[in-house]
């Protein structure tokens, strides 16, 4: 609940739009009630007048004002509906943007490894879905509820004028019964709702993994047990969905029964009031039809409130992204051209786990050429994350120009350190957009120079749009090798004078990787370059190699 309230407060910033939409929604509902009630009154009144006139009595009945009222309600409802839909869509799109920005701002301060974990799973997809779910909070849940409540109040006020003794209890009964119905649905729906969400997410995870492992399944799951189990999981989600649907249908019928009983009761008490001469016939019909019209606004509520569980689940997950730790103080400002120093660093991810690094010291100065090699899974990535300040050493220090790397703001760090991550990350947009992420003001000549160094210039030149060539999400449209080289070019454009390259030649033919690395090394004598790689054959001779094994760093000469 806390999480939902938090996101509701986030919605509150858009209150003018939300309030406008709510008001128009209310107007549409009231016009709908008014249309039916007034028409009922009018028809009954004219019917009675007609009878009396037929009997020879002279009756004066104003047909123009009710007629005009009916037309006004009719047109007013259509207009209010239209306006309401526009305003509410505007509000939803705005809150959607707010939620997305909130997510980005929440995720930005997180450490690299933490974000990588989010990215590796389906988690980011889930965040996107959660955001899309949460934007329904107001429009589908709160607004209809508020409107229904206000509509009930308005109907109650109308009823109170003519049947104060029975009218108010009927409306109160309707209100209480609706609340009970909603409460019952929430209570009953919570467990299967949560179960369904969990089952769906597990099914998705298993299915995606199985499709990726289709060869493995062909040759190892020869009896089809895994596939059968997977399909069973799918059927189980369908069963849960059906169970939930059953409850929705039941809730819907309960709500319908309740509202129709209220109509019945109104008619019953109206008839007795008419019998005792308290109200006239037309008023009786008007009151009955008023309560009749309430059914329309109460009906969507059960389904809407059944979403509460899902909304809560989404809100909780998004809320869980927040960092409870206060923001780090990052004020140190090292001068450019300073060495990166790792002093006696030991590191492991958690207590009790094997050490990734044990008492490792390392120095990278401008002009240095250093390569860290070693088997996979031995802490090479941790070493890089520690150097970038994304991880904190258990003991020891990582210093950039004398200041702890962690205490340097990200922007400052980018001025000193240029990183090429192991995973190639590119963005939707043009080649130039992707490159200028590293250096926003860079001219075309500078971009071409970087592309030239990674042997990508010819390809980009040959493409129809040159630097304006558009890439899809994640850089789609380039081959693995091209994407790798584009990311590499971006790293070269980063102002930093210390290049940290994580498996830079992955996905490239060994000779090309070696050639590019050699070229960069030759063209940037002033830069310090640290390469992390398991492909020693791509390393130019100018690099001094150190081996990272079992968490210990040794220079090649020491190894037997």
């Amino acid at each position: 609940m806390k999480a939902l309230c938090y996101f509701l407060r986030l919605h509150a910033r858009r209150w003018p739009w939300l309030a406008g939409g709510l008001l128009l929604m209310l107007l549409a509902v009231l016009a709908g009630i008014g249309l039916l009630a007034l028409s009922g009154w009018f028809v009954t009144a004219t019917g009675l007048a007609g009878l009396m006139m037929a009997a020879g009595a002279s009756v004066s009945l104003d047909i123009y004002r009710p007629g005009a009222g009916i037309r006004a309600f009719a047109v007013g409802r259509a207009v209010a509906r239209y306006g309401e839909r526009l305003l509410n869509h505007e509000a939803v799109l705005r809150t959607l943007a707010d939620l997305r920005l909130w997510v980005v701002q929440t995720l930005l301060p997180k450490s690299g490894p933490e974000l990588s974990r989010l990215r590796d799973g389906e988690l980011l997809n889930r965040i996107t879905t959660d955001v899309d779910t949460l934007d329904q909070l107001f429009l589908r849940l709160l607004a209809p509820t508020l409107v229904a409540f206000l509509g009930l109040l308005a109907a109650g006020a109308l009823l109170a004028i003519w049947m104060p003794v029975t009218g108010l209890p009927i409306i109160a009964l309707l209100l209480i019964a609706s609340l009970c119905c909603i409460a019952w649905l929430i209570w009953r729906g919570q467990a299967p709702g949560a179960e369904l969400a969990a089952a769906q997410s597990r099914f998705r995870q298993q299915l995606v993994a199985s499709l990726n492992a289709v060869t493995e399944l062909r040759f190892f799951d020869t009896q089809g047990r895994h596939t059968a189990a997977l399909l069973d999981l799918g059927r189980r989600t369908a069963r849960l969905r059906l169970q939930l649907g059953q409850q929705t249908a039941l809730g819907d019928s309960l709500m319908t029964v309740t509202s129709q009983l209220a109509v019945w009761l109104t008619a019953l008490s109206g008839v007795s009031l008419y019998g005792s001469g308290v109200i006239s016939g037309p008023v009786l019909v008007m009151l009955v039809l008023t309560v009749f019209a309430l059914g329309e606004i109460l009906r969507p509520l059960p389904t809407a409130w059944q979403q509460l569980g899902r909304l809560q689940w989404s809100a909780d997950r998004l809320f869980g992204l927040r960092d409870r730790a206060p923001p780090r103080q990052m004020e140190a400002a090292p001068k450019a051209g300073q060495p990166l120093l790792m002093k006696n660093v030991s590191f492991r991810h958690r207590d009790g786990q094997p050490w990734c690094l044990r008492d490792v010291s390392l120095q990278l100065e401008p002009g240095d050429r250093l390569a860290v090699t070693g088997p996979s899974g031995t802490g090479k990535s941790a070493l890089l994350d520690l150097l970038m300040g994304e991880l904190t050493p258990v003991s020891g220090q990582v210093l950039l120009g004398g200041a702890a790397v962690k205490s340097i703001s990200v922007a400052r760090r980018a001025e000193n350190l240029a990183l090429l991550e192991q995973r190639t990350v590119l963005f939707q947009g043009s080649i130039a957009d992707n490159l200028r992420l590293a250096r926003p003001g860079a001219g075309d000549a500078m971009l071409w120079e970087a592309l030239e160094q990674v042997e990508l210039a010819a390809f980009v030149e040959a493409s129809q749009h040159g630097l304006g060539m558009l890439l899809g999400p994640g850089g789609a449209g380039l081959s693995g090798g091209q994407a790798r080289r584009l990311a590499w070019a971006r790293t070269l454009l980063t102002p930093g004078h210390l290049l940290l390259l994580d498996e830079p030649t992955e996905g490239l033919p060994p000779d090309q990787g070696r050639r590019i690395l050699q070229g960069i090394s030759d063209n940037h004598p002033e830069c310090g370059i640290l390469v992390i790689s398991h492909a020693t054959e791509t390393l130019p001779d100018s690099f001094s190699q150190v081996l990272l094994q079992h968490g210990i760093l040794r220079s090649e000469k020491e190894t037997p």
Partner: protein
Amino acid sequence: MQTDKTIPTPPQGDAAWLFAQIDPGARRQLLFATGAGVTAGWLAIVQAGIIAWLVHVLLVSGTDVAQLTTAFGLWLLTIPLRSGGLAVRDQLALKAALGIRERLRQRLMRQAIGLGPVGLAGIGAGHAGTALLDQLNALEGYYARFLPQCLLALILPLSIIAVALFLDWLAALLLLLALPLIPLFMALVGMGAEAVNRRQFAALERLSGFFLDRLQGLVTLRQLGRGPDTVAQMRSSTDAYRRRTMSVLRVAFLSSAVLEFFSAVAIAMVAIYVGLGLLGYLTIGPAPELTLFSALLILLLAPDVFAPLRELAQHYHDRAAALGASRGIRELLDQPSIEPPRAPDGAVMPKTPVPVSVHDLGLAYAGGNRFLTGLHFELDAGSSLLLTGPSGSGKSSVLQAVMGLLAPDTGGIRIGGESVSDFRPGGLESGIGWLGQNPRLLPGSLRDNIRLGDPDASDARIEEAAEAAGVTRFADALAAGLDTEIGERGAGISGGEAQRVALARLLLKQPPLVILDEPTARLDPESRRLMLNALRRLNGQCTLLVASHQPDQFDWIQQRLDLLDYAAS
């Protein structure tokens, strides 16, 4: 390019396909659901009749207690019946929809697995995943809501007009005048709703894609110092999208506003017509014969003429979503298999090593261009062969042909004397152990992943295989050992470790024929050493077929073939 037998189908084809997926059971459920909906709708007419009659009796004939009691009693009776009908409609329709969806899912899953790695690569595993998950889920609303409502939107307004015709033909005519407009409305609304949906979905999808794209690269953006810029850029791009979407919606919503408006005007006209008729101001047609009962009933029923149509308009996006989704689903279903056919009652691989003979094998790309020709080798039971050659020379394709994943263009392959087509489905696979360069593990524990090699294996045998493949070496350092759960995409263990798990799985299976495709290509030196030692022990235990571009690692395999010698020029 792939030769595709299916011609591009028009949108009507999609609707027809969606309709064809309704099996007899689901059809019965949907018909019952519609029937329940119609019953509930008719009960609403009955209720309106009771109310009108009640008012008529009360105001015109005076209070007759017996009559009133009957009316109130009947009315009370219809209340649970009507809402019960609605509940049955919703529940049955949902059941039918979920049944159709799960049966389709089963078909799609069989198709995806049946296509095999080569066929699936043609369509993309991600694409298949979307079809099996999101696109199938998008069908639910079409079957559960749209289809039943389609019939209801036809039957109920006509029923009401029939009742109205009986009461007062001019009022019925007024409603009927609105009705011919309704196909027009529906076209308008349909087009409008479809346009709204298409554009809104497209805009939202683009926006979601943009959002996901930036989230995925958030580390990179931050390390480049672009964090604050990203926030600003996202704000401006979402604002731009919003403005564009809203300008579309402003026009598109008009179409449903028109329906709304006309139905309101029709109701108002009917109200005023019956009012004036009752007053005796109208002397045309049947107006003078209007009674309070018929007038009130017509008035009460008038909104219900339009309500089912309005509801249908609300479900229109279900249809649009299903039509869009059906294309992706059919694409997967229609993907032709490129594997050789199998014999249903065919052979099964023996448990002992088998000879493999490849005779004049030619392989071609999907488009028909031959890239390998005249390959010939005989591999005795229990012997080993190394296929070498640079990447792109067709090593993997030869292995795939032997594994029955790729139909040869020419020539033949015999495994244990039988051709691939002589084996029954699963009969060949049960005797082959395969290991590629990029092992895929399934979510679950390490033990579960190894057990896949032999579902009936004892824990002791699993541990033995884990030991032999070097899994124990790293698993012992993990808190839960072999029972450690690995996350999505093998998260939690390195590539080298995943390859060892895959090897343990293969060793557990003890297959008579082992096929290895660049098993050490992506490994670090330590994992590579472990892998090669374990593989060397397989020598002589089974027939072994290995592809590698690093032949020096397999110095213990004497028989070698360089595929460059068989390249089709």
